[in-house]
């Protein structure tokens, strides 16, 4: 039996969090792997939070923001991208599989996309197996 990965998702309240709500309105189906932490902007997500989630054993971490040009705060998502690109590289350099970390731009109109992203990410994590750090502090 394949395991259900635990995904911690950081979702900006204007786009990705709204997209996740829309997935609900559309009754789109996806696995109950992801749990969202609502933030005002994806730019509020410190790279340390992602590392913290992995250190505590999260199998996957998602940072969801608005598409470029759609940011409610003009350009917060560009700053997110700078940080997450750096973070992906850092994870790889540390020997941690960067595929466990995803940055996705999902708008408030993309309920189906949210469901699809979570489904695909969950399947990928099932192939990768549990977080090797296994929840050590």
């Amino acid at each position, binding site marked *: 039996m394949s395991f259900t990965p635990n995904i911690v998702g950081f979702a900006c309240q204007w786009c990705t969090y709204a997209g996740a709500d829309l997935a609900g309105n559309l009754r789109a189906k996806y696995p109950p792997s992801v749990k969202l932490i609502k933030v005002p902007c994806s730019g509020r997500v410190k790279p340390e939070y992602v590392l913290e989630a992995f250190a505590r054993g999260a199998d996957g971490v998602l940072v969801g923001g608005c598409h470029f040009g759609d940011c409610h705060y003009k350009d917060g998502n560009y700053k997110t991208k700078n940080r997450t690109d750096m973070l992906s590289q850092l994870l790889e350099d540390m020997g941690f599989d960067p595929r466990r970390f995803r940055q996705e731009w999902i*708008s408030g109109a993309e309920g189906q996309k949210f469901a699809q992203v979570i489904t695909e990410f969950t399947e990928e994590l099932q192939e990768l197996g549990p977080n090797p750090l296994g929840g050590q502090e």
Partner: protein
Amino acid sequence: MAKIGVYVCHCGSNIGGVIDVSDVREYAEGLPDVALARQDLFMCSDSGQELIKQDIRDGKVDRVVVAACTPRTHEPIFRGACEKGGLNKFLFEMANIRDQASWVHGQDPEGATAKAKKVVSSAVGKARNLEPLEEKYVDVTDAAMVIGGGIGGITAALELARMGHKTYLVEKDPSIGGRMAQLDKTFPTNDCSACILTPMMVEAYSHPNIETLCYSEVEDVEGYIGNFKVKIRQKQSYVNWDKCTGCGACAEKCPGKAPDEFNEGLSMRRAAFIMFPQAVPKKAVIDMNACINCAGRTIGSEPKVNAKTGNPILAPCEKACPAEAINRSLMLDPNGTIKEIEVGSIITATGYKVMGKENFKEMAPDSPNVITALQLERLISATGPTGGKLLRPSDHEKPHTLTFVSCMGSRDKNFHTYCSRFCCMYMIKQARLLKEKYPDLVINMHFIDIRTAGKDYDEYYTGARDMGINFFKGKVGGLDMLAGDKLRVNAYDMENGETIEYESDLVILASAVEMSDGTTELAQKMGLQFCGSKFFRELHPKLGPVETAVSGLFLAGCCQGPKDIPDTVSQAKGAAAVAAVPLAQGKVKIDPTISEVVTEKCSGCGICEPLCPYGAITMKKVDGKPRAMIAISSCKGCGVCTSACPSSAIQLHGYMEEQILEQIAALTA
């Protein structure tokens, strides 16, 4: 120690039908700092809210978590309940177990229940670290701005003005009037469009509370509800509007030509032109892209002198103007001028455009006798290029057979999946008007479906059938260009289950309604968002149809989605009513979920300063050392600075570091 109350909602069967609510409640009872946990069929009902209020009054809880639907709709309701119970409303947190759990994990009730527990635990973790916050109030500028001078914008501006609020009406074209000014008649009453619109245009333009800024575009918007600072670019008209009387003498003499936008390119206008005969204000502009600089009179040049008479040689437009409104010697700035205004609320009513026929390759777009419905509107209008006579563009002959094709680009996965909503009705209107005027015309209309949901609309349609207009259910596969400027229509007739082929003289495409040009840039300036169909997104599809995610910014008309004139006018009046609320109150609340610098921790590195999208951060000297300061009226609470501060000196209230870390801990426990 915190006393957290957890309230788990069944939402009828919406949550309870999938998630084991009792199990989630029992789990919540066992979480640290949870004083009590309750469940209710509908937490948002009066009785549900009363549970929360009573527990607060009884001193049983001092923090509240509701596990229910989404905070995007229900957080204000439960915060209100906390406040009424006597608790600071920011000591509240929501766990989304409906939209993001029961509704999407119906296939896995156990998994959904397990996820709901985690989400509740995360909310409890955050609640443990919540802090009470105080809302502040700021004064409001008692003025509004309406962007777009079509029927929606005019209506909204008039309503605001009648309520006593100073209103700026900003229009990009030289005249207000918008799309409605281009229409001949309006359904379902066949009122002459100009006859009902022009008086409103005049009233708006002359209203003492309305300042109309035509030939102007919004350059920049700063600030927040109650206190927006707007820069408006007044484009260069090259005509002194204070002097221009709208006589049109310049246009008569001007040799420069360009396609007439008002006539949808069916005729040419001059480089110096008045937008249309009923323009308000009736003022001329010179289109420099079409101007040929007669007599070498480029803008800002000295005129040559006639050797015989010694008089300066002027351009025809200058010479023709009896009001001396055109003086090409002046060094006029091609960028126009910037006007700065301050307003408390803004209504966007930027309207729509229709898809051009070039998008539809199978519909013989190269034939001049294939036109859009908006072009037909100009062809049958008394102010149009043919004076209202139906003449086909290729040879100015009267057509005998007319074909209407619906849903061009609408309800089509290759273009737009949405219905453009008013095409069925305007096609029926155009067909009826033409059949009345020319009873011998053969009019064939091809529909996927006929959508006539509106007051007196279906009667209008059945009336059209009785008049002898032919309706075919089924798509038109394509058009072929034939000799004699005719077109062969290849269509399918679903009712008889057969293909049909016939020759037509003029084909009208009811092409899809799309957002106007320039709206992407406008959205970026104002922080507006788009929905899937690329119209502006309203705050809530049912309960907030005129509000947006930006407080103080409202929507009216087709910029929010395709709608006809009655719906646009209704929405514009609604938008005016909500836009007037902050103006009438005189004060607005400032959301306290914004960033603050803990000065003692700030090292003065200045990393945060350039990151702020609103320029809200400045470095100030405190005891001789630089320290970051955040202006509360400019901060919008995105938290970009908070995440970047290497000293963790900036905290974002409502999304504090310890709150988020507790959530991460709860979700990974």
